[in-house]
């Protein structure tokens, strides 16, 4: 346990040497002035470093061990790319600089856009969305605008499978569209007949993650996208699982019209404890004119930023996107090239299928009718008879030195454990994870309390989430301080 930074505070301490004011003062009118101190801590740099380093040691992270969060693609984050994004000439640039004074950045943005279009099989791109959910928002608005332009503004339904990420329905609501849920079949794929019966003259768009959230490729994808096109809708691909498809198949060739990419998943930029990411959106030519502000174009006189809203869907952020994340993604693609990217997906698939094959004797894998893609979903439901829940299995994995998989998602699988090893894990670390999972399966049979008592080897024991809501404490009370 580490004290809060406020508890280290003592008046007069400071952690940075600031320049001395070298201009005459101008009085701050009394009526505007802050009446009381802010309540910020006062510590030295050394104290601050010790505090934050101590905090850091309580975090699991990708360098500590395998991090199999399904749909999150926790792969290694190359160090060179961190260094490159921090070069002074890239980091110290004001967002409202003249185009001629930021040619380097604009060139990276333009080139990255072209590379991502090639990878997805599309023609146009916006790098502005800050995260996957904002990419979804941009993508749905593009489709909505396209429908409006051709006089089909009555189309207000977004179809999506019942296994969709929670962001998909939430985004549809934000875009002013109605969610129509489509059933999954017994193998976890889109029920094509149910889709056919629900697609119609009110269909604006269909949203699908492919491979889907069960890690299964939608084999009828051509039929699915055609059903939507035939009723006048467009197809949106949630690209959260693109790590399975690099150099293997492209959304643009599957009948999708627009997709977002999570550059912080597939293209290796770090997750930062929750962000920043980038939800870059690639789309067909027909949607180009609606792209949000801040698109980069190449002209004879160099690169220019198109920064007007015009007839576009608008502006998603004040400026041009999470540019620092774009640098890392560009560096990643440049490092790997086409063969390297294809290898990423090949090995991601092999690693996931190997894990599934080895764990199947110990854990139920529903919807298993052939190879999975880069991840698979197991169920912890069988442990219920021993009084063990999936949450307990997840917590026990922490004791074994691994992060837990994504749990309780997708909701169509009971007690789901969604496991994604990624291509940057070695066979040795994958085997160690499998051994831990097998051990836990044995513990469930023989000593289930070890699992329900978990975790015990972590900085804190199991935390009480109910108490957190009941006795809400979201900020340090002032009286907590010395």
């Amino acid at each position: 346990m580490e004290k809060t930074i406020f508890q280290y505070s003592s008046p007069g301490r400071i952690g940075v040497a600031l320049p001395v004011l070298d201009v005459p003062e101008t009085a701050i009118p009394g009526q505007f002035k802050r009446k009381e101190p802010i309540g910020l801590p006062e510590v030295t740099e050394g104290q601050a470093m010790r505090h934050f380093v101590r905090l850091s040691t309580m975090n699991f992270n990708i360098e500590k061990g395998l991090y199999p969060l399904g749909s999150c693609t926790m792969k290694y984050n190359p160090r060179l790319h961190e260094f490159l994004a921090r070069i002074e000439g890239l980091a110290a640039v004001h967002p409202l600089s003249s185009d001629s004074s930021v040619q380097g950045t604009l060139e990276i943005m333009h080139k990255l856009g072209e590379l991502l279009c090639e990878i997805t099989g599309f023609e146009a791109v916006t790098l502005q969305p800050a995260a996957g959910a904002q990419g979804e928002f941009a993508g749905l608005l593009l489709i909505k605008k396209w429908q409006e332009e051709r006089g089909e503004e009555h189309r207000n339904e977004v179809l999506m499978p019942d296994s969709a990420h929670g962001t998909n329905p939430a985004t549809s609501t934000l875009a002013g569209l109605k969610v129509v849920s489509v059933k999954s079949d017994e193998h976890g794929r889109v029920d094509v007949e149910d889709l056919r019966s629900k697609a119609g003259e009110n269909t604006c768009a269909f949203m699908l993650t492919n491979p889907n959230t069960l890690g299964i490729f939608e084999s009828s994808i051509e039929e699915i996208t055609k059903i939507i096109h035939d009723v006048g809708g467009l197809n949106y691909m949630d690209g959260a699982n693109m790590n399975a498809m690099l150099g293997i198949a492209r959304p643009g060739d599957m009948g999708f019209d627009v997709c977002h990419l999570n550059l912080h998943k597939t293209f290796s930029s770090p997750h930062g404890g929750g962000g920043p990411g980038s939800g870059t959106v690639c789309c067909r030519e027909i949607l180009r004119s609606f792209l949000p502000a801040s698109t980069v174009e190449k002209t004879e006189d160099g690169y220019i930023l198109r920064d007007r809203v015009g007839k576009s869907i608008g502006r998603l952020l004040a400026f041009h996107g999470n540019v620092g994340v774009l640098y890392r993604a560009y560096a990643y693609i440049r490092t790997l090239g086409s063969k390297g990217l294809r290898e990423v997906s090949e090995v991601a698939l092999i690693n996931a299928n190997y894990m599934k094959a080895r764990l199947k004797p110990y854990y139920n894998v529903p919807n298993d009718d052939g190879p999975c893609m880069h991840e698979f979903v197991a169920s912890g439901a069988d442990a219920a008879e021993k009084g063990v829940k999936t949450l307990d299995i997840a917590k026990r994995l922490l004791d074994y030195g691994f992060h837990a998989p994504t749990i309780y998602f997708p909701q169509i699988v009971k007690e789901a454990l969604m496991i994604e090893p990624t291509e940057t894990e070695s066979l040795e670390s994958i085997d160690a994870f499998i051994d831990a999972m097998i051990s836990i399966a044995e513990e469930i049979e023989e000593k289930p309390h070890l699992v329900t008592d978990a975790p015990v080897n972590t900085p804190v024991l199991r935390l009480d989430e109910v108490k957190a809501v009941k006795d809400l404490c979201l900020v340090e009370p002032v009286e907590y301080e010395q």
Partner: protein
Amino acid sequence: MSIFVPNGKAQRDRMLDAIGVERFEDLLTPVPESIRLRGELDLPSPASELELQKEFKGFAARNSSADLVCFRGAGAYDHYIPAAIDNILTRSEFFTAYTPYQAEVSQGTLQSIFEYQTMISRLTGCEAANACMYDGASAVAEAALTAIRATRKKRILISGALNPRTIDVIHTYLDNGDFEINEVPFGADGLIDLEAADKLAEGGVAALVLQYPNYFGSIEDVQAAAELIHRHKGLLVVAADPVALGVLEAPGKLGADVVVGEGQPLGVAMSYGGPYVGFMAAKSAFLRKMPGRIVGRTEDRAGNTGYVLTLQTREQHIKRAKATSNICSNQALMALANVIYLTLTGETGFTEVAKQCWHKSHYLNKRLLEIDGVTDVFDAPFCREFVVNLPVSAEVTVTAMEEKGFLAGLPIPGLGEGAMMLTVTEKRTREEIDGFVEALNQHIKGAE
């Protein structure tokens, strides 16, 4: 075999064997032949570390803007970033971790967010804060939606003196719902016209959204705006500059219900516009209507203090179509930069930064007004940013000043051909300010 993939042919063959297939292609049976990529992606050949470094140095060299002495703000500010910040941010434990879903192995991230929420709450004068939003502009749009949910009214008033980019983002977020947005004009003094707001608020509105200090740097009367909008049963949403809050009274103390803003000035590089981070704080009455992640303090089974994500039933992964927002990934690492920045500068240092921005921007303003033909556009008191009218074209001036090594203020064509908005941070020395004034004076004389 790439440097990021440890399983070579030997391991892959063993694994394929265990899976029960002969070759990798057997795993692709679910992917129809008809849609598989024929041949390879058309990408440049792989670059070595050394080649990539050289390529990036070339890009950086073509960013001449990085070498300019900056007097431009308008939403992004050139503040000093203490060296210790990057040192912490680049620790694997922080930057390679995911969202803290498994709280027991994420106490570092969770406690730092709790400290962040505390600092944002104290800075804004609000009871509660969330774990962060994408940026200041999207935070304003989300705050407007929060007010709409809290009041069940569908109309909002926005100040015409909001950053125009923020106004764009508000429209992007709200125009697709069944909402109405009315803009309140600003007067000749540079402040929002409260009488006009009062009239527009008739019939009931969800919120009045204003910026503090506003886009032009003028200091709005938050208290009067709060009283006005509360009479109409609406909420006051304030988009605040966090550095200005080092000297100005906290909006929450003046009656604001939701306070949001851009966290970039607090230890985050300008980086051509991102990644930045939005903050959001509110009276606790509106907590359950707020978007985004929230961290709460609790106990573990042994009674030790710990931290978890809480009030998650507002969020998309549980509420789906009925969630308060679609936000999932946020800008957590930038929020961590904010906490470290506010820790290192601390009570005295942070206040000092804010004061220096006040004094230096006023010094520049006075020096500029000494130049023949330069006048203030507005007469209301300003904080760290202001608009002057130059006797020459502001656009042409920017280009001329760039050649002399300065990033001049932003032209504001809507306020006149000569209108330029300038800011001065604590980084600027008197010598740089005087040099800028001299260069500008020369340019104006030359142009006449």
